């Protein structure tokens, strides 16, 4: 399902500047996009416009050719699932299984479908063995995975993750990578807000970069990292392998360690 944002502007009640300024972009079905930018650049604010938690003060938001204006968040939830930054704002049930079932149940899935969705999501994030536990007995990263599982179980065509990898270790991040590949295989769009440039370089082809509420860059991640001035003005830094390959004048510059090693071995031969 396509997302189209046209000239979206927004200012919080107690703010003295526009927190989003004429943001326009289109995200196609099945795309994987990173939403990046400095702290306070408006990433979360933009994400909240995609499911009606915030209503645009100017401009329009379309989800699959359907204008969302005056539609309640609960209605948007069947199309757009949003992971909140802090898992503890989200967890509200006494059992892990119930927690994951909360979203799809609200969306009115049949009970057999519900069971399948929950089982799949639990397996995807390696939580099956904890399905009877109380979410509050879990550790932070387990709760984070639980929140991720609850969002993917909603089976929406669009998923927005706000800082999904914060607090996860290598193994857990690879679970998440597996999950987003799985989602893309089903033709779902994934938008991921993150500060982790290594992750973006390796796994996300397109980046939208916000700077003080305005779109500063929208395009391929490779080209973004080449633009040093823009990067530093957005308080961003390319991954270390990229910096290293720039230093060694490799073309194209490597985004992943594998690319770096293969270019290096070619130049040595």
């Amino acid at each position, binding site marked *: 399902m396509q997302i189209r944002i046209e000239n979206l502007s927004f200012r919080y009640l*107690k703010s003295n500047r526009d927190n989003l300024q004429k943001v326009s972009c289109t995200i196609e079905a099945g795309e994987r996009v990173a939403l990046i930018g400095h702290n306070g650049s408006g990433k979360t604010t933009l994400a*909240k416009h995609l*499911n009606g*938690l915030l209503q645009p003060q100017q401009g329009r938001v379309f989800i699959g050719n359907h204008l969302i204006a005056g539609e*309640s*968040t*609960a209605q948007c*939830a*069947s199309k757009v*699932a*949003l992971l*909140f930054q802090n898992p*503890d*704002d*989200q*967890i*509200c*049930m*006494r059992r892990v299984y119930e927690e994951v079932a*909360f*979203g799809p149940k*609200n*969306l009115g899935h049949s009970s057999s479908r519900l069971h399948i969705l929950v089982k799949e999501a639990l397996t995807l994030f390696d939580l099956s063995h904890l399905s009877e536990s109380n979410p*509050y007995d879990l550790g932070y990263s387990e709760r984070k995975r639980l929140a991720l599982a*609850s*969002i993917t179980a*909603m089976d929406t065509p669009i998923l927005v993750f706000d800082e999904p990898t914060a607090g996860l270790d290598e193994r857990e991040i690879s679970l998440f990578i597996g999950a987003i590949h799985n989602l893309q295989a089903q033709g779902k769009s994934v938008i991921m807000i993150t500060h982790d440039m290594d992750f973006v370089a390796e796994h996300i082809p397109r980046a939208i970069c916000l700077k003080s509420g305005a779109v500063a860059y929208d395009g391929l991640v490779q080209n973004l990292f080449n633009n040093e001035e823009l990067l530093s003005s957005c308080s961003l830094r390319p991954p270390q392998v990229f910096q290293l390959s720039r230093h060694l004048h490799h073309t194209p510059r490597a985004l992943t360690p594998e690319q770096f090693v293969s270019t290096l071995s070619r130049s040595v031969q």
Partner: protein
Amino acid sequence: MPETHSTLFIPGDSRYHRLHPFNKLAYILLTGVTVYLGPGKSLAAACLIILNAGFAVEAAIFIPLWRVLWRTLLPLALYMGIIHGFFNPANHTVLISLGNMSVYQEGIQFTFTVVLQLSAVLSASLLFAFCTHPADLITAVSQAGWPPALAYLLGSPLLLLPAMRERARTIQAAQRARGLETHGRLSQRFRAVFPLITPLILGAIVEIEQRAIALEVRSFNIPGKKTSWRKVTDSVVQGFFRWGMVTVIIMIVTYRFIN
């Protein structure tokens, strides 16, 4: 974020703001006692409301105070007005006849008195909450030589409530994002309350633990007298008025017992 976001306090430098917190507390107590136990119920309440309105104008908080007041009391007034206007057992003077039902004067009068009394107490309490920084209350209590634990107990709800309200909003937003209908029909709103309770209470318990640790690492329980960075000004005149109010409170209570 500015301080106003996390407490009810509205900064200002009026006379009412600068009053000693105990004077404002004594005034709330005096209002309550006068209105509920003193003679001349509605008249006394009306006078106190006018006085409070004057204070609110002086402290430049009339608009926010008025907003909270009518939002709280109007629904109550309507609800009570209907119930008592029609069904109060003391009803016998008909005001308006609607078919075979009638609205009676006694019920309306009763509602009027109750709302007036509540307005007086609520406006005095809101004056206190809007014009007293919780830290000043805490400082005043510990300067008076009472245990700091008591000061914390008194002050923390004022600091915590707005933070809890903010958290409840975030939690509800997260649940709406997962398809829970929290607006709309009354039954839907009611059902939406249950999933809110667990994260709110458990979150608060976790926070209490963190607060305890934070207090401990700042030597909250260390014996000996502590000095305070904040100063709460007091004066002989204020002390005089304070004890004056306490005396009147005692007099009214005694009067009530004798009669």
